[in-house]
């Protein structure tokens, strides 16, 4: 059952279209990632899902209702939203827990316990982030919306946060995760929507996204004797062959390596300096969003 349903969502700010005909569904218990460059409409989309903004077009429903009607069931962690400078961690926690019928205390799990007396303004970026996560989860939400969850955390804290998110999910919480870390999306997300210019350009599992990229596998080698490139080009697994100096770079589908090595074996050619590269989600992302500017489609 879809717990979040976004249909044909559109939102504009003045003349600028922030989000245009975006549709997706998130199933209960899923970790759904939203990826894309700055200004692609990610934050606007999650703001509509969290009930902060009213869509100009289309509809958003959470648990089958408009998001504003189910606020207590949605936990939100936002970018660029702070707390009063001098509020103590313990006060923020008790204030926010007073808003919900059955509050949950995540402070221990998030390592906030030693800092309960500290004032917000004195916390490090990482601790502020952790407090923000604790406040998003404090209402025992059924849906958690986390925007740039691990930005500002050091690598260790980031990994800790990831395992926390997995824990939260195994408690049955559905998670909508905005991120720009491919590693994070790859590790956590069941499915990922890639945004570009206010639209979804791809929606798949992380490995599905990777496999969609042309020439997902690359084999490079230097042949022991001259090799007719045309022999490689006729192989069905091969999509492109390039010559870089004396090195041959063959791009193609998953079974590329086997196809290439069998050919070389038949011709009794030894492949020296053999290397196989797999396209990562990073590369897939760059290709999908045209982030490098090299490819545009």
């Amino acid at each position, binding site marked *: 059952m879809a717990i979040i349903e976004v249909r044909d969502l559109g939102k504009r700010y003045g003349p600028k279209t922030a989000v245009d005909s975006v549709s997706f569904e998130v199933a209960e218990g899923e970790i759904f990632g939203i990826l894309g460059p700055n200004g692609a409409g990610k934050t606007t989309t999650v703001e509509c899902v969290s009930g902060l903004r009213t869509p100009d077009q289309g509809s958003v429903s959470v648990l089958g209702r408009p998001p504003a009607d189910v606020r207590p069931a949605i936990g939100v962690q936002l970018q660029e*939203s702070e707390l009063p400078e001098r509020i103590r961690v313990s006060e923020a926690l*008790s*204030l926010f827990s007073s808003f*919900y019928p059955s509050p949950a205390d995540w402070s221990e799990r998030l390592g906030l316990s030693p800092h309960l007396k500290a004032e917000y303004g004195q916390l490090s970026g990482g601790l502020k982030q952790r407090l923000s996560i604790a406040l998003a989860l404090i209402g025992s939400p059924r849906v958690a919306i986390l925007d740039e969850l691990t930005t500002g955390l050091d690598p260790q804290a980031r990994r800790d946060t990831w395992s926390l998110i997995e824990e939260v999910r195994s408690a049955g919480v559905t998670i909508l995760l905005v991120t720009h870390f491919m590693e994070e999306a790859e590790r956590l997300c069941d499915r990922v929507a890639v945004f570009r210019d206010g639209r979804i350009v791809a929606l798949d599992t992380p490995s599905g996204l990777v496999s969609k990229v042309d020439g997902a596998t690359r084999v490079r080698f230097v042949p022991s004797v001259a090799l007719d490139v045309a022999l490689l080009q006729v192989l069905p697994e091969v999509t492109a062959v390039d010559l870089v100096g004396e090195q041959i770079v063959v791009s193609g589908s998953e079974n590329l390596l086997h196809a290439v090595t069998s050919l070389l074996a038949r011709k009794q050619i030894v492949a020296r300096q053999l290397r196989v590269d797999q396209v990562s989600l990073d590369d897939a992302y760059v290709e999908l969003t045209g982030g490098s500017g090299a490819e545009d489609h």
Partner: protein
Amino acid sequence: MLKIIEVEARLFVRDRLNSLFSLLFPCLLLLVLGAVPALRTPAPEFGGLRFIDSYVSSLVVVTLVFIGLQRLPAVVATYREKGVLRRLSTTPMHPARLLLGQLVVNFAAAILSVLLTIVVAYVVFGVDLPHHPLGLAAAVVLGGAGTFALGLVIAALAPNARAAGGWATVVFMLLMFFGGVYLPRFMLPSVVQAIGSYTPPGVEALQQAWLGTAPDWRHLAIMGLVSLVAGTVAARTFRWE
């Protein structure tokens, strides 16, 4: 809601400099001025009263204007700028409750400060207790409401916390001037005195309720009107982010 007021009150007290200033400054000013013998001697300029008698209403002006224009708009604009209001918008609690909490705490502080001024004026300098307590209460509540509402208009319209601080300071200075804080009112031209009767928080009504017989209901009505108009403008134009 009680929790919000509690937390806001803690934050108010924790901001030591500002909270001490808003609670104690009028009393300190009274003590300093009262230490000058000439200001403790009845003089014909003050209608046979002493300077400090004629100045108590201006001390109330200091309290209300400081809290309403130096504290309130700055805190509210900062809450918006830092995304505190935005953060609350995602919870079941409407962020308006936070502003309400701010108003309650600041109003309570203002009343406490006025009571303190009354007590110090009476105990140390023998200034009469308010002749018309109910009238004074009405003048403080309506004058405070008018001043706070102006502060909220500034918080609503200013693009950011810095601008809010700047605008509020200009209005703060003007209201202090018309309220006879810099120069006692008897030294001001009669036009300025007349204006001061109608600018929040309404020094004339405060003075009349304290040492006269009763505040002029027209002055009170004007304060009520100012609160209503400014309050409506603030509510209509307020941005949560």
